[in-house]
Structures are given as C-alpha cells and as structure tokens.
C-alpha cells in the first residue's frame, strides 16, 4: 500500500550513511566514566544525627503521631530541575531523622504538593497544607514562589524556613528563616552588595584583579540584581567595563555574545546565566576557537558546569557550599554527601552536593533545630530561632538584620582539577584562588 514513501525512506537511509561517513573520525562515544568514578570515590560515612543538638538513636523505630512538614515545590514545569532536587533532599532528611529515631520518638513526615512552576498555585498550596493542619512548612524554591507562599504562611503564624529565596528584597516577616543568607544589606535595593564585595575581595586576594570585565546576563530577576551590584563594585575598584549585555532566558545561540567577548577580550567574563547558559556559551566559544582569560558564573546548573569537563578548570562560580574542608569535613556533611549522591543518582540528578542541595539541607537543619529547641509549636520555634544561632552545613546562621538575612554566606568557588572547591572567604576556603588572567 505504501508506494509513496519509498524514495524518501531510501533518502533517509542514504543521508544517515552520508553523515556517518562525514564523522568517521574515530570512536564517536568516549568511554567516559569519570563522573561515576568520582561518585565511587565518595568515602563511606557513619550515621550521625542531622543537627548538632540531637542524638541519633539508630535502630529505634519512631512511634506515635508523625510530625508533618508540608511544602510546595515546582516538580513540573521550567523550575522542575531544582524543585526536584529540593524534594530529594527533603525525602533524604526525613528518612535520616526517622533512622535516628525521629524527633522525641515521633516520626517526621514530608508532604509535598507540586505547584507546576506557577506562583499563583504556590499560595493556594500553602493554604491547603495549612488547612490540612500540617505541623510545619518548608519554603518553596525561587523568589516569586517564596513571596507567593509567604502570605498564607505568615498569616497562619507558621515558621517559614527557605532554602533559597532568589531575590525578594522585600521583607517577608520575622518568621522568615532563609538558609541562603544575604547579610549586610542596609539598602534593600542593594541586597547583593555584600556578595559583590566578596567576589571583589576574592579577585583582589589573587594580587591580579581584573583590569577589564565583560558582563553577559540572563533576563532573570536574581541574575540581573546581582549583576548590578557586581558592576558597581568592580567599577569602584577601577575595572573597566568593556561590555554589559542582557539576553533572553532560553537563548541557545550565544555566538554573537561570544564574539563580542572575543572582541573585547576582557580579563574577566562575568556570566550572569542560569541553567545551561554556561554550556551554550562555551559551545559558542568553541565554535570561534576562543578561550576566556577568566570567567565567573552566577547560578549555573551544576550539571552544566560538570559537563564542561576540562574546559571548566579555573572557572569561578557563585556558591555557598562545596564539598571541601572545613565545611565539608564534618560527620554530618560527610554523611549527607554520601546519602545524597545515592538519592540523586536514583532520581537522575546531579550527584554531588553544592549550593542548592546544601542550602536545602541547611533549611531543614534550621527547622529541625527550632523544633528540637522550641518544641512542636510554631510560635516557640519562631521565637527561639530569632534569638539564637543555628549551626548548619553551610555555617553558623543567625536571623537578624534586614529580612532576617543575618550574615552574608555567599562565597566564591572555583573548579580546580575537575573539582569544585571554595576559594573565598579564607575561613571556609579549601584551596587558594588560582587567578591569573
């Protein structure tokens, strides 16, 4: 019956053969197992309690009414890559607590609702969770979602721990406990100033601060605000801004931006890109055979950086945590690194702990510490957290100052020998910044 397709089918076969011939240049697929090898290198770790003030009663199965923590996460839609990561950490923490005998013998339970990456749904999701009488809530991922959830959560008097809160530079309330702290904010429109200063300090510590810089930033709230602060800071330090362009979210072709960069050939390339932008930019660099003298990337997807392989060596990345001493060398961090790599591999996520996963754990540590110290009562938890410091995987956090932002914990990481390591500030650095543009 199918007389018609034959010539075209023949053509397809032909074209496939031709393409095969075209690229007959050795093995097409590398026998690349390095990522798996690195996972295998993660040392085994012993079970410890997830927070400092808690004893781990291994093997004692928790009984009684569960303590339910509810949360809304973007499990589908454009924010899903990070949303699922936070979901994975939440499940991990709940299992972890329950393996340690629960909280005061009561099991912990995680109840998550998908918000389809839509802020409007976040609001009703929290209303729904609070209506269902969950004991506590965990914040969502992303600035718009965090602010959308803040309304019902605050009104109901719940504590609102958040892992990352993007850019809401406006006050949420005294019940807000961000794990990713952006302290030192006195003027809310300059909330990234401290972070920008950290970057500047790091660059200056090398003794070779950049004389020129080129900025390429994605149209995304956080990246734009952060870029603004860095431009001001670098200009203040005498760096020439060679170029400053913005591009649309979802841009896949960076060749004109790459060429602009090549033309300017600056000491520092600042990429305010999220997700896979860094991959695509490097592809454009490859195409024109250009190698940036140095590059700093804010908020890249970890998988995108890892995928660059050797090319990423020397790349600087915004970070609050990397798996290196001193932060990465505690029993809690080691156990988390180990279990997270297992969970993430199961869920097809990037298997190493970095900013997002660490912030997620830290948010849980804040909540768990609050519960352990204040009891199963939101008002008490809020009061205790506002008055005390919490020891988390990303460092000691306090909840004061503007928007409860406490101290600034933004750090600079660098890829060295294929591994991400914190290089600044010195108290958390696992290696020295290697910067010589």
């Amino acid at each position, binding site marked *: 019956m199918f007389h018609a397709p034959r010539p075209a089918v023949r053509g397809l076969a032909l074209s496939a053969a031709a393409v095969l011939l*075209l690229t007959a240049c050795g093995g097409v697929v*590398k026998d690349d197992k390095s990522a798996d090898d690195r996972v295998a290198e993660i040392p085994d770790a012993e079970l410890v309690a997830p927070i400092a003030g808690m004893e781990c009663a291994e093997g004692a199965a928790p009984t009684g009414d569960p303590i339910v923590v509810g949360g809304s996460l973007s499990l589908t839609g454009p924010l899903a890559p990070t949303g699922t990561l936070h979901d994975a950490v939440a499940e991990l923490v709940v299992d972890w607590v329950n393996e340690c005998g629960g909280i005061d013998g009561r099991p912990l339970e995680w109840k998550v609702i998908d918000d389809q990456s839509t802020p409007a749904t976040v609001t009703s999701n929290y209303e729904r969770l609070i209506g269902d009488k969950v004991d506590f809530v965990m914040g969502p991922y992303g600035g718009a979602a965090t602010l959308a959830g803040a309304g019902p959560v605050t009104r109901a008097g719940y504590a609102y721990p958040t892992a990352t809160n993007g850019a809401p530079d406006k006050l949420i309330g005294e019940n807000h406990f961000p794990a990713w702290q952006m302290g030192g904010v006195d003027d809310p429109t300059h909330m990234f100033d401290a972070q920008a200063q950290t970057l500047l300090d790091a660059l200056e510590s090398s003794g070779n601060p950049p004389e020129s810089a080129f900025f390429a930033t994605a149209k995304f709230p956080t990246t734009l605000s952060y870029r603004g602060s860095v431009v001001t800071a670098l200009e203040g330090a005498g760096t020439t801004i060679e170029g400053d362009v913005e591009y649309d979210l979802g841009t*896949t072709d960076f060749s004109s931006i790459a060429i602009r960069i090549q033309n300017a050939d600056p000491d520092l390339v600042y990429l305010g890109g999220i997700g896979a932008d860094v991959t695509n930019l490097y592809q454009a660099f*490859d195409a024109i*055979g250009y190698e940036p003298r140095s590059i700093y990337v804010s908020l890249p997807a970890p998988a995108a950086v890892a995928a660059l392989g050797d090319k990423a060596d020397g790349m600087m990345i915004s970070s609050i945590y990397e798996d290196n001493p001193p932060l990465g060398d505690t029993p809690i961090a080691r156990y988390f690194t180990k279990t997270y790599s297992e969970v993430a591999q199961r869920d097809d996520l990037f298997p190493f702990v970095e900013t997002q996963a660490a912030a997620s754990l830290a948010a849980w540590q804040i909540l768990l510490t609050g519960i352990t110290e204040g009891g199963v009562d939101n008002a008490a938890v809020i009061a205790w957290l506002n008055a005390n410091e919490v020891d988390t995987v990303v460092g000691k956090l306090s909840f004061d100052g503007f928007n409860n932002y406490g101290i600034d914990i933004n750090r600079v990481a660098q890829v060295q020998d294929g591994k991400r390591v914190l290089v600044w500030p010195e108290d958390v650095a696992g290696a020295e910044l290697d910067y010589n543009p």
Partner: protein
Amino acid sequence: MSVSSLALAQTLLNGALLGCLFGSIALGLSVKWGHLGVADFFHLSLTLLGAYLTYSLVTELLWDPFLTLAVTVPAFFAVGVGVQWLFHLIDAQPFTTLLITFALFIVTESVVSMIWSPDLLNLRPLLSDGFTTSIRLPEPLPQLAVQPIDLVALVCAALMVGLAAYTLRSTRAGRAVQAMRQDAAIAETLGVRVLPLTLAVSGLAAATAAVAGMVVSLRMPLTPTLPLQWIGIVVVATMLGGLGRPLGALVAAVVLMMIQNAWSLWFPPQWAPAVTFGVLFLFLALQPLTRIARERFTSGRTA
C-alpha cells in the same frame, strides 16, 4: 561598538548553522501543516523525545549516535502514522488537530520529565574530540571556525530538506501529495490513494523529528521544556518559508538566525526574539494576497 567584518562573518556563519538545526525541525512541521493541514505542535515534542532517546541509547548502551536512528526513525514513523490515523478516525477538523497535538505536547513534556528527570542532561562530555573540537575553514576563509556538530546539523538539514523538496517537487509520490492538498477529489480520480498517502506523509514527517532530535542531543543540553524555546523560531520559519515548502522553511530559519545574530552583535541581544516576530509581522503586512493565503484560499474560488 565596532565589530570586524570577520567577527560578523563568524556570527553569521554560526547563526546559519544553528538555523539549519531549526530548519530541520521546521521541516516536519511545514510538511504536516502545508500538506496535511495539521499545525502539529507535537512534532516539537517528538524532536525532544528523539533527543532523549538518542541520549539514553548513547549513554546506556554506548551506541553510536547515528546508529540510534535505526531505532528512532522507524519508531517515530509509526508514531506519525498512528497520530494521523487517530485524526482520520475521528474525522478531525484542523482546529481539533491543533488542540490534540497541543495536548500531546503537554503529555510528552511530563512523560519526558518522568522518565529522564527534569534535570539537565548533556551528551557533549561523552562525545569524542572529533565532535567537539572546532575546525578552521579551508582557504580562503581560514579565520572562520565551525564545530563538527554544526556540520552534522548542516548535513542532516541539507539532506532531509533537500530530499523532501526533491521528493515533493520531482517524484511521483511528491506530486501526488501536492495534488492531494490542492484538490483531493480529483487527485483520487487520478489514482491517488489519499488515506495511505496522508499516513505515509505524517509518518515520514515524524521520522524527520528523530533525525533532528539526534542532532539536538549532540548540540545542546537537554531539558523537558526545550520545545517551548523552539516554538517561536520554528513556527515563524515555517510560516515565512511558506507552508508545505521545506526549502523555504530552512532558508527562513537560516536567515532568521543570521538576522538575530547580527542584531545581537550590535544591539541589545535581549531584543533579538522580538526581531524574529518583527520580521514575521513585516512580512505579513507587506505581502499582498499571495504566498500563505494563496495555498489556503485559491481552491475555494470558482469562476
């Protein structure tokens, strides 16, 4: 900002090569839309699915990327036939088909994210250097460089589009397809069997998504929401090229990407997407009653 002519040439070249990739995605859309009257958003999903299947076959079974076509092409052919069969069964109106393909678009995004996780997947690190090291062009343009992957995109686009255009214009089956679109009843009296032909066209169009998907998986990191980023350029290229004209769609995609890149070189890159649609509106506004309208409205006229 002054830019050397060399830089301009390079960015235009890159744009053209990426345009080839979009052109090969637009190919299937153009054929289905122009010749079957189905504005098929599902085609974009199929392309994504093809990319993910390629990724899995390469990473899990360590197949050669080109070898994956042996699986994906026939499988997608079957899918294309199946969808068209469904349209035939329910005697779907054009708008109904549009809605159904949109629903399938939503479903596919979820299926992909369920199977492969919503996180970024990247095939590039696994590719041999022959794929990723850029090549300098031979004289007289030794300063310009291209990536082998882009060349693959070029070859695939040129082959598929060329074949499709040749088939449509110069083969027995292609003429039958054109005839069917213009006057199905008369085509039937000439021996054209409409149902098998539409099924075959739909199947072949879907099969091109397998090839385009393979190129996508080599070319860019994969996320389930990728098709949303393609819709704009692919749909505009399809319309600008003239529905049912694969060569037109390819040329339009190449030109659009070149314009976008040239624009981004001198003007704020964030306005580049608007330029694409500006071109579309300009085209629609300036164009008298020809091209797009011609195909769809002339058949209704009677003297």
